């Protein structure tokens, strides 16, 4: 099966039907292992047990940006190849990405209160992630406001690509400005600075959340394809009635 075959909605539905049970089971298993490893991870010498918040905050923060990256690639697919599955991919990723961003913001806030003494600070990292969250909400609102999916697709794709400018700002905000937020400790030149006792549960949870995203995204894409099929059939029904 080639990539072009997968771009066919009918073949995509067949493939997701086969893949989803395996993906869901793998996600559940990896989440259980990751949660266990997070529970038994030692306390940090400075942060104590609050370091456990990192195991859900960081995967959600990574995914908040990764999902927008996926949507940006899909936006290119919409604008350059005008493929309907590209728009389906972008539209269905947005609510999932917004949820991950919401969790990154709230868990970060809950981690910040005991460590920084404040739930919120208008510094570059926190503010740029809040902007990302608002952009997700804006895109969701745009897709909901326009009834015809093909008309919404182009506007949403342009907005997504403009919003992608925020991704390097989020990533490098801790280097470019003085922020309360700590600099990168995993994805950095010279390798991770985290101890293995924290790095392993963190990577396991990141992998589990990535699989969760893949599973939810494929399932949501299947729903959206069916929704568009329903719409097309309802239009056929309406035209048959009026004929």
């Amino acid at each position, binding site marked *: 099966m080639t990539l072009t075959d997968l771009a066919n909605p*009918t073949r995509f*539905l*067949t493939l997701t*039907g086969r893949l989803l049970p395996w993906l869901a089971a793998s996600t559940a298993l990896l989440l259980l292992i990751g949660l266990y490893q997070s*529970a*038994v991870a030692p*306390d940090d010498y400075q942060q*104590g*047990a*609050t370091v*456990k*918040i990192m195991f*859900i*905050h960081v995967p*959600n923060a990574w995914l908040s940006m990764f999902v927008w990256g996926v949507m940006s690639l899909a936006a290119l697919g919409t604008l350059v190849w005008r493929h309907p599955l590209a728009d389906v991919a972008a539209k269905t990723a947005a*609510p*999932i990405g917004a*949820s991950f961003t*919401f*969790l990154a913001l*709230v*868990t970060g806030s*809950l*981690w910040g*209160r*005991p460590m920084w003494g404040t739930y919120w600070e208008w510094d570059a990292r926190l503010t740029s992630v809040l902007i990302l969250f608002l952009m997700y909400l804006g895109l969701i609102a745009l897709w909901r406001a326009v009834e015809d999916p093909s008309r919404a697709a182009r506007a949403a794709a342009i907005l997504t690509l403009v919003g992608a400018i925020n991704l390097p700002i989020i990533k490098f905000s801790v280097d470019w400005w003085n922020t309360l937020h700590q600099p990168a400790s995993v994805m950095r030149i010279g390798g991770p600075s985290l101890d293995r006792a924290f790095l392993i549960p963190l990577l396991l949870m990141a992998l589990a959340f990535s699989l*969760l995203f893949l599973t*939810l995204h494929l*399932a*949501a894409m*299947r*729903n959206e394809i*069916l*929704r568009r*099929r*329903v719409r097309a*059939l*309802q239009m*056929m*029904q309406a035209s*048959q009635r009026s004929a």
Partner: protein
Amino acid sequence: MSLGPYASFILTSYALATVVVLILIAWIAIDYRHQKERLRELDAAGIVRRSGRSAVDIR
């Protein structure tokens, strides 16, 4: 396992993540059921796809 003086912050974070993930799963599962139901209704009304396949045939 002792979570120390900030246990409420840690437990709230994990509980919130669990709730949000469960809401996402439920939303997608309910939506799937809803779309299949609408396709069944169209099929019962005799509407078939341009390919000639039944509306409920999701292959």
